[in-house]
């Protein structure tokens, strides 16, 4: 294990953890419910750590990415249904990320939103075409580390650490009306979905195969999953806690992504604002690339096409054409003028519906000793895996009714 490679891998995971949905829901959750939803971030982060580690392990040992497993385990019909749902979910998420990047660039430069959307899509396509896989991952992930300014901002505003610590204990705030309880429930489901987005696992496991992981990389996989995701989650929790401290008491609803950047502007002034916007820009841009690539991986793996960005684009032509078309489709959604926040809401809703189908075959295969030999899930991974499967299934069942009853968390 090369320590430099490992550190870079972990830092990339940290910088790439936060996306537009986490940004929005963390800020809104803090403003609406104070520190009471921190535990949901912690719970969902443990979930994504467990499934990422499992997908990396399966990639390293069985050399199988998620969508190959899905079709083999679920069969053609259910597999196709999952593929279709996941394409829709990832496409909406990708559109939300492109919209988010364009909004942030609009804040930074004042240039028109539509022009920024077209320009950034061109930048994404060009960068994926030109750069090797590891560079793509690292350029966006490492530049996303500007997001650390949110953690620094939280420390600078001297928050009530005991209340933040208390937020890690599972709770429902006392004294909520029925309507507020439903909204709290919706935020719980939305945060689980935003943190455990299926594209993250598709991208992570496919990336492991692209980088040629084998059983010797088991520790790298474990450390990258645990440290990268946990430290990344702390950034999201910092946004929530700053919002609880700064926005909640004055009834500010951080409805647009730019509001979160003010959390760094308040303690650090202009440079805080610029660093926060840059961090958001690269983190969300990284997520746009990951969602699009994850979609192309899924489709190519499901149909058995040559795939991967470790090959030159023309060496995996159907895969390449697929990710280019998907970027254009996501851009087309943005250009219809649909509100970015609405895209975020739908991305979260669709993703939670796909989650159980994504994680079931992974869970089954990671526990199968025929393929995984001594690397199959042990008792702790089994119990935690099935426990989280029950949690995301419950969240998927509750998602649509909560979305309808709360008008997408808006009461």
């Amino acid at each position: 294990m090369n320590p430099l490679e490992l550190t870079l891998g972990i830092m990339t995971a940290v910088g790439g953890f936060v996306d537009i949905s986490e940004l929005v829901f963390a800020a809104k959750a803090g403003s609406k419910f104070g520190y009471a939803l921190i535990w949901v971030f912690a719970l969902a982060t443990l979930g994504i750590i467990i499934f990422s580690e499992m997908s990396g392990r399966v990639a390293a040992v069985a050399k199988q990415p998620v969508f190959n497993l899905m079709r083999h385990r679920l069969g053609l019909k259910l597999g196709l249904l999952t593929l279709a749902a996941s394409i829709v979910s990832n496409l909406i998420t990708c559109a939300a990320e492109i919209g988010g990047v364009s909004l942030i660039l609009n804040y930074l430069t004042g240039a028109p939103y539509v022009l920024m959307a077209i320009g950034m899509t061109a930048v994404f396509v060009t960068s994926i075409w030109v750069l090797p896989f590891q560079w793509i991952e690292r350029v966006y992930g490492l530049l996303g580390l500007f997001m650390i300014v949110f953690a620094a901002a939280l420390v600078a505003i001297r928050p009530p650490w005991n209340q933040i610590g208390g937020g890690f204990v599972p709770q429902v705030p006392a004294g909520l009306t029925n309507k507020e309880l439903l909204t709290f429930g919706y935020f719980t489901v939305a945060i689980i979905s935003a943190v455990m987005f299926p594209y993250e696992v598709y991208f992570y496991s496919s990336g492991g195969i692209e980088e040629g992981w084998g059983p010797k990389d088991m520790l790298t996989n474990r450390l990258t999953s645990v440290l990268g995701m946990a430290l990344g989650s702390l950034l999201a929790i910092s946004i929530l806690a700053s919002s609880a401290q700064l926005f909640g008491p004055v009834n500010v609803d951080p409805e647009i992504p730019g509001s979160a950047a003010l959390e760094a502007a308040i303690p650090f002034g202009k440079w805080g604002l610029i660093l926060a916007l840059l961090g958001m820009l690269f983190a969300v841009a990284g997520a746009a690339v990951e969602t699009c690539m994850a979609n192309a991986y899924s489709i190519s793996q499901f149909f058995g096409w040559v795939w991967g960005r470790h090959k030159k684009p023309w060496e995996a032509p159907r895969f390449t054409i697929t990710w280019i078309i998907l970027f254009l489709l996501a851009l087309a959604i943005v250009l219809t003028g649909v509100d970015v926040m609405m895209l975020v809401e739908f991305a979260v809703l669709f993703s939670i519906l796909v989650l159980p189908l994504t994680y079931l075959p992974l869970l089954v295969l990671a526990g199968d000793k025929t393929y995984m030999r001594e690397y199959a899930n042990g008792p702790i991974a089994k119990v935690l895996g099935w426990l989280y499967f029950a949690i995301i299934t419950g969240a998927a069942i509750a998602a649509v009714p909560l979305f309808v009853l709360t008008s997408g968390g808006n009461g």
Partner: protein
Amino acid sequence: MTPDGPIKLVSQLLDLPLLDSEGKYCGIVDDVELRGRPGQDVQLRALIVGPSAYKGRLPGWCMWLVKKVAGARETRVSMEDVRTISSVVHLKRPGPELGLNKSENAARRWLPNKGAL
């Protein structure tokens, strides 16, 4: 697992990816061709690869959509060309020699062969 031993068709073969002798993905086991009669052992003759082989596994309206999107190609890979079966099916020869990867090669014509590091 070797191709001449007993195989559980659904759990150990159907919907597995195919890797050719050069390690390239070249399709999925979409269906299988069997030989045998009632009362006799059934023998696995070939793997069928391509969207046309979904017939019988998907509803009719779905097949119409699949044909529109993915075409109606179907390739037969004899079991003699299968090396091993594990979490993937390893083939003994390169995909193009077996008639696989035709769509991949057709798609290649749409892309410029330059510009990537």
